[in-house]
């Protein structure tokens, strides 16, 4: 396809999410990477696209009772419960430190009402240290018990619209896989002004201690992450990519460049790495190196050339209308 030799170093792996330009397509998943500082001894943070901070709420939250973690086959359940000091304390004591990080910092906002989101988003987005905002709309909506914002297209639209009105910075809306039709939620988020979508948050799950006859998590239920959910996440990205035009940050079980490529080919412009950091903190940098080698081998100059290129045009003469089962 190309005649001249491309070296891996020359390959453009940058990505643009709304107004935000990132030199690397690798975001560190919210709640998995602290504020970046925790990983600084182990990773050259200047080679990380961005760190998405742990979600912050309007009021301080002690977080869930323990245990908060369970290891499961090829994955884990967590139920941290948004432990955070609340936006006022956070702005006062924590945010200034983020300026020193050698990588882009994206804030994450969670809430329990439309007003909460707008309030916290406005305060956080106003700070220079924060380059973009991710709306974590997959936490319980206290107004309608058991439901979450990301499970309802109207609630999604309302919260995104309210947050949008508070800032011009890039707004990433993080969707939940625990819905019948993620594409319809994605469309609402786009229409309401999201610049990008994060797909997916954790999958709801539970584990039971069969000696003690009780749930293994203090919170009873939790969110499943890691390689176990990767096929679920790849499909979600694939479906959302066909429903919207804004860029997608793909996530869920990415551990290798091969995994990351599934997400890019499915339609993600960037990826996020969470649980894999718990296996090996070297994963994010290794993935970028291997992505470059993969692209170089195929004579491609830019990562964005492969986004959404999974071809579904299978020709098979023996096919009835297909389905699972």
């Amino acid at each position, binding site marked *: 396809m190309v005649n001249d030799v491309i070296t891996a170093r020359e390959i453009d792996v940058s990505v643009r999410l709304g107004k935000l330009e990132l030199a690397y397509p690798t975001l560190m998943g919210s709640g998995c990477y602290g504020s970046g500082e925790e990983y600084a001894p182990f990773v050259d943070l200047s080679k990380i696209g961005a760190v998405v901070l742990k979600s912050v709420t309007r009021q301080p939250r002690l977080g869930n009772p323990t245990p908060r973690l369970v290891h499961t086959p090829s994955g884990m359940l967590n139920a941290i419960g948004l*432990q955070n000091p609340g936006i006022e304390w956070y702005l006062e004591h924590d945010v200034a430190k983020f300026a020193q990080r050698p990588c882009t910092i994206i804030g994450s906002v969670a809430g329990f009402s439309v007003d909460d989101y707008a309030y916290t988003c406005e305060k956080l987005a106003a700070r220079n240290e924060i380059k973009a905002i991710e709306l974590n709309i997959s936490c319980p909506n206290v107004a309608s018990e058991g439901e979450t914002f990301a499970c309802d297209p109207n609630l999604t639209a309302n919260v995104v619209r309210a947050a949008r009105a508070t800032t011009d910075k890039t707004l990433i809306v993080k969707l939940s896989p625990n819905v019948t039709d993620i594409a319809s939620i994605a469309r609402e988020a786009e229409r309401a002004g999201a610049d990008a979508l994060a797909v997916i948050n954790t999958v709801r799950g539970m584990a039971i201690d069969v000696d003690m006859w009780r749930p293994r998590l203090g919170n009873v239920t939790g969110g499943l992450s890691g390689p176990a959910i990767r096929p679920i996440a790849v499909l979600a990205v694939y479906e959302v990519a066909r429903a919207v035009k804004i860029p997608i940050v793909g996530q869920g079980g990415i551990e290798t460049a091969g995994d990351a490529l599934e997400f890019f080919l499915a339609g993600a412009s960037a990826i996020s790495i969470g649980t894999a950091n718990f296996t*090996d903190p070297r994963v994010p940098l290794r993935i970028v190196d291997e992505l470059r080698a993969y692209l170089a081998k195929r004579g491609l100059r830019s990562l964005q050339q492969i986004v959404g290129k999974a071809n579904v045009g299978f020709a098979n003469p023996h096919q009835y209308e297909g389905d699972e089962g």
Partner: protein
Amino acid sequence: MPIVSPLATIHNAIVTDRRVLAPGVVLLGFDAPDLVAVTRPGSFVMVVPPSGESAATALGVYEADGRRASILFFVVGKRTEELSRISEGEKIGVVGPLGNGFTIGSERDVAIVAGGVGIASVLLPAQAYVRTGARVRLYYGARTTELLVERERFAHEGCEVLVATDDGSLGHAGYVTSLLAQTDRRPDVILACGPTPMLRAVASVASDMHVPAQLSLEETFACGVGGCWGCVVPIVNTSAQAPSFPPAERNGSDVVYARVCKEGSVFWAHELRW
């Protein structure tokens, strides 16, 4: 208690020796001079699985001397099973040293309590206190004699070793904490590592004795470096180890969750609210 060493990093270590100490109990020594140089008593490491497929495993640094450090673990699940299949000459990824470690003070009489695999985290503090000239007594409990691994090693290092077994096959028959409670000698400080029920018992005995106790806690970890807030334990929010959080006046709770991996893994027993 001190904060985590800024010199922690990821070590590509070659396994130099492997010993099976008892059925399902493995000791792996590896070459990691940079780790040894900054390891403190009570430090732990996160060991990256060779397959790259499951979460890294938190393990105490058992020995740290010259170029060589070691880990000592019980095979209890998938990850420790995978680690047990590593052989000499293989490379392992070791993240650390992590955790604040034990505070080695000027106490003259020190009781160290270890339950089962807790033994892996107490050799370094034992050596450190022996070096200060303190009298160090190890209270060491396990299910059965065979699992009281490395007890001669502690004697050899200059500790007085008292043992307890659940099945009564050696030493005191019953919990090691009742052995501690029955002691004729009130120590100046207690250091303990072992399963949570044992640590709770140690806390209660220490409180009865009016002796300060440093407990090395074990929780399920994900990141091991303070990034996920998954491994927490409730402590009083006036503790020096409490994370940045509004005080009780502002949020109605005098307790806060601290990360075992980052603010710990060693806590003062009297500051815990578990």
